[in-house]
């Protein structure tokens, strides 16, 4: 007979006590200075929680509560609606460039004061997001590359140019991103065939790029929104070529999968996220300290090593080795997306794009 059986109620009591003890530190921490930071949920948030935020709290005494942001523009919509009600679900958020521009249209972002952000001088110019009148809306947080990826079993030789997408030999072999505003294929087309993204300045230029891009359609097997879907097919060789994230492809290759990421001679697509401060936030002081901290070359180098992002500061100020730098970036001049178009012409572009791929 079991005499030492634990009663259910005792166990519940112990569980409750344990849970409240676990909850205690956060209550204590909340009394100090704190900052709510929005980061893309999943891999990014996990990496930041593990590698960046604890060190920041140690260095500055400001506790960070990280908030998982949904992808797409859902977070922008939530921030905007909360700001109208005087609320800030996060003080500082990592925002995409298109979301930055859309937020500017309603003055959602508190202008940042670079006098309080000493390390901002390290940044590459393209990572300072400005209002039309020159006020600073956001500061580069991280950047990443979308490159030409291939399965090494199917393609023994790495392709060297984006023109591989147009090669009739690659019929039904490509996996491309499904949206005009996240695939940036118009920019790729313009840079590869029309001398640069300035070719997209006019409507004729855009239409020419659309026509050229239409030639790629027979080669496309998958237009993906879901990254996992393409990554799996790329690894298995089911869909052996396409566009994908340089860092993630590098990680997959390091795990032994037969994949490679190539910076085409026309350049990889460099996308980035900004730190931006909601106008409803009361934590301007802490936010400036946080952004300043994140702009340090050593932190950017840590991000490159631990999270796999490309630095937003000049390469020479970081201590990244050639190999470490190549793992996240390239010296080839990148293709910078025409974010302005996705704000001023978004509906027209979206309609044309949808008709192009669905029609």
């Amino acid at each position, binding site marked *: 007979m079991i005499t030492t059986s634990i009663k259910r109620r005792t166990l519940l009591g112990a569980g409750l006590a344990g849970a409240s003890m676990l909850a205690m530190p956060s209550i204590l921490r909340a009394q100090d200075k704190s900052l709510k930071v929005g980061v893309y949920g999943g891999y990014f948030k996990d990496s930041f929680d593990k590698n960046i935020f604890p060190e920041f709290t140690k260095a500055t005494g400001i506790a960070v509560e990280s908030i998982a942001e949904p992808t*797409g*523009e*859902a977070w*922008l*919509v939530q921030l*905007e609606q909360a700001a109208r009600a005087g609320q800030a679900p996060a003080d500082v958020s990592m925002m995409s460039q298109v979301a930055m*521009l*859309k937020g500017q*249209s*309603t003055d959602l972002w508190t202008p940042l004061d670079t006098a309080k952000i000493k390390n901002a001088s390290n940044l590459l110019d393209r990572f300072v997001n400005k209002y039309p009148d020159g006020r600073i809306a956001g500061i580069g947080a991280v950047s990443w590359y979308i490159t030409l990826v291939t399965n090494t079993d199917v393609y023994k030789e790495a392709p060297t140019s984006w023109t591989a997408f147009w090669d009739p030999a690659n019929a039904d072999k490509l996996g491309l991103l*499904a*949206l005009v*505003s*996240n695939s940036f294929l118009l920019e790729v087309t313009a840079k590869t065939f029309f001398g640069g993204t300035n070719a997209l300045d006019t409507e004729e230029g855009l239409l020419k790029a659309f026509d050229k891009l239409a030639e790629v359609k027979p080669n496309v*097997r*998958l*237009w993906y*929104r*879901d990254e996992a*879907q393409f990554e799996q*097919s790329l690894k*298995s*060789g*089911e869909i052996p070529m396409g566009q994908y994230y340089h860092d993630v492809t590098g990680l997959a290759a390091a795990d032994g999968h037969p994949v490679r990421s190539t910076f085409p001679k026309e350049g990889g697509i460099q996308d980035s996220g900004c730190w931006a401060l909601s106008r409803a936030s009361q934590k301007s002081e802490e936010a400036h300290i946080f952004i300043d901290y994140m702009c340090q070359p050593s932190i950017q180098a840590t991000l490159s090593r631990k999270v796999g992002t490309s630095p937003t500061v000049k390469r020479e100020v970081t201590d990244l080795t050639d190999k470490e730098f190549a793992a996240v970036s390239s010296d080839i001049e990148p293709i910078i997306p025409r974010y302005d178009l996705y*704000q*001023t*012409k*978004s*509906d027209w572009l*979206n309609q044309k794009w*949808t*008709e192009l*791929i*669905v*029609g």
Partner: protein
Amino acid sequence: MRREPPQTLGDYLPLLFPAAMLTIFFVVPFGTMIAVSFFQRQQGGFYTPAFVFDNYARFLSVFFGGVLGFSLMLAVIVAICCVMLALPFTYMLTRMARKVQVVWLVALLSILSLSEVIIGFAWSTLFSRTAGITNILVALGIMEQAKALTPSFGAVLTGMVYQAFPYTVLVLFPALVRLDPTLTEAARTLGASPLKAFFTVVVPALRNTITATLIMVFIFALGSYLLPQLLGRPQHWTLSVLITDQAIYQSNMPFAAAMAVFLVLVTLGLVALTVIAGRKGEAA
């Protein structure tokens, strides 16, 4: 026992809770959606309250007409396939031993616990060139070379029928269990073959159930937006996919709402037509 109609206010009280829930969780959100569908879209921003028809005007084009037509056709085909498969299946199931029935029903219910994502990924693997079912056919010597069956219309259809099949069986099951076995026995006694008895007695006796099931599967399939993306090419994307694009990726809520309202109206219209046609058929 005779059911009496409610007489005092107190008799209506039990109704208040579901009515309130229905209002809060269905009528209010749907009303909001209709309101938003008339709002003014601010390109590169959000939207402002207004009363404009721009969003509906944009939808009324050959392109979106084509997508809507495809979505409706896909849902109709899924509904027909499901009922055609599920009706004989359920009929045979009701004639099996209780234990066997339970095993089948539990298996079908367990399919319902799978998310659309899992179903989509499973079928895309089954239909792939590298790991798919064609490899088995190659091993058996039936096929020369393994090939990819996805993305294609057939893959989308298979995935959606697979997903809707358990619902179809569960809706048909009660009606078929209650079906008087003496009806078929009489038909058999009068010399009809089992097949003939099924089509001339069972199917007509269940006409209303079959119509209701068709409508239910049709509406269920119309909302599908993940499977067409995972298993189809862009021309197989349903209107729901484009609505999601507008709402989530373009933050164009007014246009997304207008498309959704339009889809609901067309669906209700089709359902009403089916019901009316059914009544006329009965009266004749």
